[in-house]
């Protein structure tokens, strides 16, 4: 076959076109397949994000109906399912805990008919899974990171225990393991379903990502007798969106611009 300059340029041009088209076509089909694989696959897709489309998990706590017993049940359910040890001193570890209004909302207590009337009323505090999380920004190893579905995730494997995130978090949601937590967890109390942590690792609430992946609600929501609403903030028909539409709700320390996704119904 005689090759000419004209033929060579033609072949080169067609190959360049092929190279630029094929990856685009291939990627398109694989992404479509990924979407059918299920719930958890969808969240991790590059198209999902915290603003606009995709899932954005959020919580609304009904402070008017919340009682001490319900709070205790929520804490018990969460801590026993996640191997959180009970340490009764300054080195305590907490994922979810009761807090008074004037501690929860220090900048909002001049509100004359909502928070101001009940400075001693208690509500549950937990990680707010902020849209703009300061803990994620300061983590030097990316052990804590933001998932596309809004959860501020911890990769305990990667945490080096520098505690920058604890300094950065304005809500005190993070706890440090000053000692091996297994010292405070009897063998009979440990659950196999969730790892314990190790000495020198920071931990916090993870919005029960392991249950969300199975299509279940977080533990605290399940035992809260309907006083905690949970769902997708981007879905107008979800429980959270419906209740936020009807009730007056505030968030913790909005002046800091962290955009929490845990709402308190007053």
């Amino acid at each position, binding site marked *: 076959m005689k090759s000419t300059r004209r033929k060579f340029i033609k072949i080169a041009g067609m190959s360049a076109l092929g190279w630029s088209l094929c990856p685009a076509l291939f990627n398109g089909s694989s992404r479509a397949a990924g979407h059918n*694989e299920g719930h958890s696959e969808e*969240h991790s897709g590059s198209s999902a994000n915290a603003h606009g489309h995709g899932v954005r998990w959020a919580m609304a706590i009904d402070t008017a109906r919340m009682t001490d017993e319900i709070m205790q049940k929520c804490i018990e359910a969460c801590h026993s399912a996640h191997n959180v040890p009970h340490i009764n001193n300054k080195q305590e570890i907490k994922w979810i805990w009761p807090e008074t209004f004037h501690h929860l909302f220090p900048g909002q207590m001049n509100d004359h008919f909502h928070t101001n009337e009940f400075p001693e009323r208690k509500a549950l505090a937990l990680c707010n899974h902020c849209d703009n999380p300061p803990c994620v920004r300061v983590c030097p190893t990316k052990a804590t990171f933001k998932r596309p579905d809004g959860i501020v995730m911890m990769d305990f494997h990667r945490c080096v225990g520098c505690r920058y995130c604890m300094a950065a978090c304005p809500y005190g949601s993070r706890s440090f393991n000053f000692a091996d937590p297994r010292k405070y967890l009897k063998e009979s109390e440990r*659950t196999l*379903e969730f*790892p314990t942590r*190790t000495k020198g690792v920071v931990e916090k609430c993870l919005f029960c990502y392991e249950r969300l*992946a199975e299509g279940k609600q977080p533990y605290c929501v399940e035992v809260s007798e309907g006083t905690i609403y949970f769902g997708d903030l981007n879905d107008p028909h979800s429980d959270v969106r419906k209740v936020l539409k009807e009730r007056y709700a505030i968030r913790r320390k909005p002046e800091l611009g962290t955009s929490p996704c845990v709402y308190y119904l007053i």
Partner: protein
Amino acid sequence: MYDGGKIIAGLAVFVLLFTFPFWYNIGNAAYTKPKLELPKDAKECVEKTEWMRAEHMQLLNEWRDEAIREGHHTYKNMVTGKVYKKSLTKTCLKCHAQKDKFCDRCHESLSVHPYCWDCHVAPKGDK
């Protein structure tokens, strides 16, 4: 040869010391592969036995990163396409329920100390 005696004596000492591991272990039993207790109610692992023996550490590292960081929770067998959940405690340990009769046997014999169990809770024989 100058100082021949010293050189030969020195060489002899060197050879003796250099081969210390060999003659020290003369008479000891030869290394035997540890006997593993295989799960009774499962016939196949997530991959072939030979592949798992060589690559399980890499596989577990990949599972760790993909499940936590990327949110991909399912693993497909490379040959049959059977789907498994990427989880040490919910997949591996469901069959290999006693880690002291499976994991630990090889690890102890080869003196490797993986730190999986510092956090992940082993079903039985947990220290």
